[in-house]
């Protein structure tokens, strides 16, 4: 890191600490449905407290309520940072109950899940205002240029809050984390597999660096 960049960073983090941060460090895990947010939240919480946060499923909108885990102390390279981790429901602009039926759910179940999913999205959007930082999880096998990603990034930029992009599922052959980097070059990005734990230590370093 260049010296100027370092000074800027120190200045702005000192500025943040004095003027608005206080002691709260609530970090939200955001992203589209199925990106691996809960898998990642579980891994973080398991690595540092030995618990899990919520259930994981290949059916989208598995998480339909935000779950907060308080006081998770993440250690990396001798430094440590204590965060509240909020696993949020996947953000979407559309929810079709027939997609759930295609996954084998009954029509009744699918309608109910669709309804709950819309409430989950609203809850996730409202949580955005109460956070001091966001980990934005993207499935690295998918197109990163989606409105959901653009909206989350835009909100964090507008409020000048730290954002870390996680390019997840790099264990899959067709993953292209470089596409995510070139889509949003202005933000730090770390490629990982939340499932296998690949590169997870680098992510912890980045978390300590950007949310500390």
């Amino acid at each position, binding site marked *: 890191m260049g010296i100027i960049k370092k000074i800027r960073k120190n200045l702005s983090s000192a500025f943040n600490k004095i003027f608005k941060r206080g002691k709260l460090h609530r970090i939200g895990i955001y992203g589209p449905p199925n990106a691996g947010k809960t898998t990642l939240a579980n891994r973080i919480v398991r690595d540092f407290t030995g618990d899990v946060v919520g259930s994981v499923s290949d059916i989208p909108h598995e998480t339909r309520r935000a779950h907060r885990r308080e006081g998770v102390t993440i250690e990396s390279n001798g430094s440590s940072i204590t965060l509240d981790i909020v696993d949020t429901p996947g953000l979407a602009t*559309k*929810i079709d109950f027939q997609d759930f039926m295609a996954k084998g759910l009954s029509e009744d179940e699918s309608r109910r899940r669709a309804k709950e999913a819309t409430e989950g*999205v609203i809850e996730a959007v409202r949580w955005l205002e109460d956070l001091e930082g966001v980990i934005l999880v993207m499935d690295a096998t998918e*197109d990163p240029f989606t*409105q959901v990603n653009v909206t989350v990034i835009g909100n964090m930029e507008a409020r000048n809050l730290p954002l870390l992009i996680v390019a997840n599922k790099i264990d899959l052959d067709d993953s292209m984390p470089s596409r995510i980097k070139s889509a949003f070059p202005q933000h730090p990005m770390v490629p990982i597999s939340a499932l296998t734990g690949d590169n997870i230590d680098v992510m912890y370093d980045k978390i300590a660096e950007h949310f500390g």
Partner: protein
Amino acid sequence: MKGIQMDLISSDKLERLSSVEKIRMILDSVEDGKIIVLERGLTPQEETKLIEATMTKITPGEFAGIEIESYPGAVHQSWFDKLRKKPVDRARLTVIGPADQLKMLKRDRDVISAMVSAR
């Protein structure tokens, strides 16, 4: 003539509308099956309000939500802009339509390619 109505809204018009009016106009049009093109994009806060409002309108079997695509915001924001909390410039084209009629084919930094189908 049969077809799909498309409304192209100028940035002048958008500037005169409040956030609430913009979101109402967009959702009313999209629920009617129209495609909307905004010359100037929404602010990030308006985008989250639009997502919230869309969720309250979704009815299984009737309305499945919206497809919306815009170019990502300006890449360049100097640290001085950040300190002054200057909002990121969002003056970019946005296309919005009913999720069951508008399909995004390909997007990148400069091009959005979409397919529109009849209901």
